[in-house]
C-alpha cells in the first residue's frame, strides 16, 4: 500500500516537471519568493522608506536599478518590499481560507443534514457578492493592518474552499470503501482524515495556487483604492496608485511594480495549470 502511494506521488512530480508552462511558472514563483525573502531579511540596496531629496525621480541607473519616485525613494527596494508584503498578506489569507474552508466543506459534505445546509446557504450569500466589494466592506470595518487585510481576503475566499472540498466528499462518501469502513466501525475522524481527505487533495492544491493569484490581485486592488497598506509603507497596488500622476514623465514608477504583480500572478496561474494536469490522471495523456 505504502509503496504504491509513493509511486503515484513520484508520478505527479514527474508529470509536473514534464510540462514546460508548469516549470516556467514554478521558476517565476520561486524568483518572487526569493526576492521577498531578501526584502524580509533587509537585503535591499536602499531602505524602501528612505526619502532622498537630492535624487527625486531619477531614471533607472546603476545606483537606482528601477529609478526613484517623487520622494527620492528607491523604486527597486520598494517594489521588492511591496512584493514581500503582498505575498505575506496573500499567503496568510489563503492559508486561513483553506484551513477553515476545507474543514467546513468536508464536515458539511460528510455530516450532511442541517449542518451542511447552513454552510451551503452561508457560502451562497458570500458568492452573491463581487469579491472586491466584499473585501472592501470588510477592510473598512476591520482596519488597515496587514493581518486585517488578510482576514478580509480570507473571509472572501473561504466559500470557494468550502465548495471545492465539499463536492468530492459528497461523491466519495457514497463509495463502497467508505461504507465498509463505517461498517467496520472506524471512527468518523479516522474516515475523514485517512479516506476522504486524500481524495479532495488534488482539487484543493490547484485551488490554493489559483486563490493565491486572486488574493494578490485583491490585495493590490485594495491598496490601490487606499484601503490596504498605508503610506509610507510600500505596496504594489499603492505604488501603482501613486504613480498615476508621475507615469507620464517617469514611466519606471508605474512599469516596475505593475510588472511584478503581473509576473507573480502569471507564475501562480501556470503553477495552478501544471498542478491540475499533473494531479489528474485523466488529463495526463493530453
Amino acid at each position, binding site marked *: 500500500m505504502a509503496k504504491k502511494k509513493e509511486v503515484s506521488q513520484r508520478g505527479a512530480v514527474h508529470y509536473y516537471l514534464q510540462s514546460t508552462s508548469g516549470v516556467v511558472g514554478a521558476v517565476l514563483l520561486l524568483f518572487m519568493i526569493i526576492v521577498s525573502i531578501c526584502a524580509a531579511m533587509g537585503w535591499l540596496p536602499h531602505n524602501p522608506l528612505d526619502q532622498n531629496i537630492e535624487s527625486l525621480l531619477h531614471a533607472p541607473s546603476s545606483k537606482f536599478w528601477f529609478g526613484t519616485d517623487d520622494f527620492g525613494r528607491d523604486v527597486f527596494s520598494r517594489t521588492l518590499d511591496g512584493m514581500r508584503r503582498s505575498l505575506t498578506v496573500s499567503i496568510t489569507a489563503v492559508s486561513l481560507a483553506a484551513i477553515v474552508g476545507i474543514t467546513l466543506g468536508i464536515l458539511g459534505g460528510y455530516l450532511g443534514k442541517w449542518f451542511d445546509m447552513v454552510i451551503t446557504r452561508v457560502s451562497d450569500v458570500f458568492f452573491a457578492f*463581487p*469579491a472586491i466589494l466584499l473585501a472592501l466592506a470588510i477592510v473598512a470595518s476591520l482596519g488597515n493592518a496587514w493581518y486585517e487585510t488578510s482576514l478580509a481576503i480570507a473571509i472572501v475566499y473561504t466559500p470557494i474552499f468550502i465548495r471545492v472540498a465539499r463536492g468530492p466528499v459528497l461523491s466519495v462518501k457514497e463509495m463502497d470503501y467508505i461504507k465498509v469502513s463505517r461498517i467496520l466501525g472506524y471512527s468518523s475522524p479516522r474516515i475523514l482524515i485517512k479516506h476522504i481527505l486524500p481524495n479532495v487533495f488534488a482539487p484543493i492544491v490547484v485551488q490554493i495556487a489559483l486563490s493565491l493569484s486572486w488574493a494578490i*490581485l485583491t490585495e*493590490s486592488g485594495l491598496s490601490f483604492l487606499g484601503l490596504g497598506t498605508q503610506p509610507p509603507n510600500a505596496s504594489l497596488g499603492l505604488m*501603482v496608485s501613486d504613480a498615476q500622476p508621475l*507615469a507620464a514623465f517617469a514611466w519606471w514608477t*508605474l512599469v516596475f511594480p505593475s510588472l511584478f504583480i*503581473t509576473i507573480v500572478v502569471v507564475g501562480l496561474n501556470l503553477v495552478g495549470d501544471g498542478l491540475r494536469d499533473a494531479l489528474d490522471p485523466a488529463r495526463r495523456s*493530453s
Partner: protein
Amino acid sequence: MQGISKLRRLVFSSTFIRIASAITTLFGISVFVFLVLRVIPGNTITGAFGIETGALNPQQIAELRHYYGIDQPMVMQYISWMRSFLSGNFGYSFATGRSVFTLTKVALPVTVELAFIGTILGVIMGIAIGMFSARKPGSLRDFGGQLFGLLALAIPGFVLSTAIVTIMANKFHYFPNSLEYMPPWKDPWMNFQQMMFPGLVLGIAVAAPVMRTTRSALLETVDKDFVRTAFGKGVPSRKVQFKHVLRNSLIPIVTMTGIQFGYLLGGAVIVEKIFALPGMGRQVLEAITRREYATVQSSVMVFAIMFVTINILTDLVYRRVDPRIK
C-alpha cells in the same frame, strides 16, 4: 402530450425553487451587510463631521443620533431600512439630501452599460481567441492565444486603466473622461468615447477566462465521435467548427460568462474610480468612507439582486442551449 406537460411542471418547479433560494440568499446578504457596517468603527456622525465630532457635546450627539436614526435598536434599524428598501425609495442619503433611489437611478445605468460593454467585448474577444487557439493545439498560434489569456488574467484592471489614461492623456492629449459624464441619451458620441476604454479594460478581464474555457471546451468537443462523423461525411470545415463544435461547447462558455458578468460589477468599482464615471461602484466606495449606512446597504442589495438574477438567467440560457437539462 402528457410527457410535455410533466416536463413543463418540472421546469417550473425547479425555477420556483431557484427563485425561492435566491430570496433566502438576498435576505442573508441584507443581514450580513447590515451587520458589517455596524461593526465599522465610527458611524454616520463621525463620517459627516470628521474630527470635529470631538467638539460636539453629549446633547448634540444624542440629537444627531436621533436625527440619523441610529439611536434605535439594531432590529428596528434593520426593519426600517428594509421597509424603505422594499417600498422602493431605498432610504435617505444625508450627505446628498436625496433618497438612495434617486442616486441609484442615475448611477445604475452607468454601471450596467459598462458591464454590458465589458461582457460583449469580453465574449467576442474570448470566443474568437479561444477558437483561434483551439484550431491547432500546441502550435505557435495556440501559444499566442494562451499567452493573451494568461496576461489578460494577470494584468490587474487598475494597471491597465492607469496605463491607458497616462498614454491617452499625455501622448495624445485625449481624455474624454475629464469632461462631465454624458449619458448615452444626451450625447451618444461623448458617451461612447467615455465608455470605450473602461469597457475595454473590463472586456479584457472577461476575455481571459472566457478564452480559456472556450479553448478547453472546444478541444474536448473536437474529439467526440459526431464531429469526426461530420468531417467524414464532408461537411465544410468552417461549418463543423461553428455548428457542431462551438454549439456543443457553449454550456461552459455561458456559465463562465454569467460568472464574469457578476464579477464585472465588482471590477467596476476600480475602473469607475480611475475613469471618473459616476456609477454604482463609486457610489458604494464614497458611501463606505462617509459611513452612509442606507446608501451602502441599498447599493449592495442592488448589486446582489443583479448578481442573483444573472445566475438565474444563466440557468435559463442553459436550458435553451442544452435541451438535455431539465
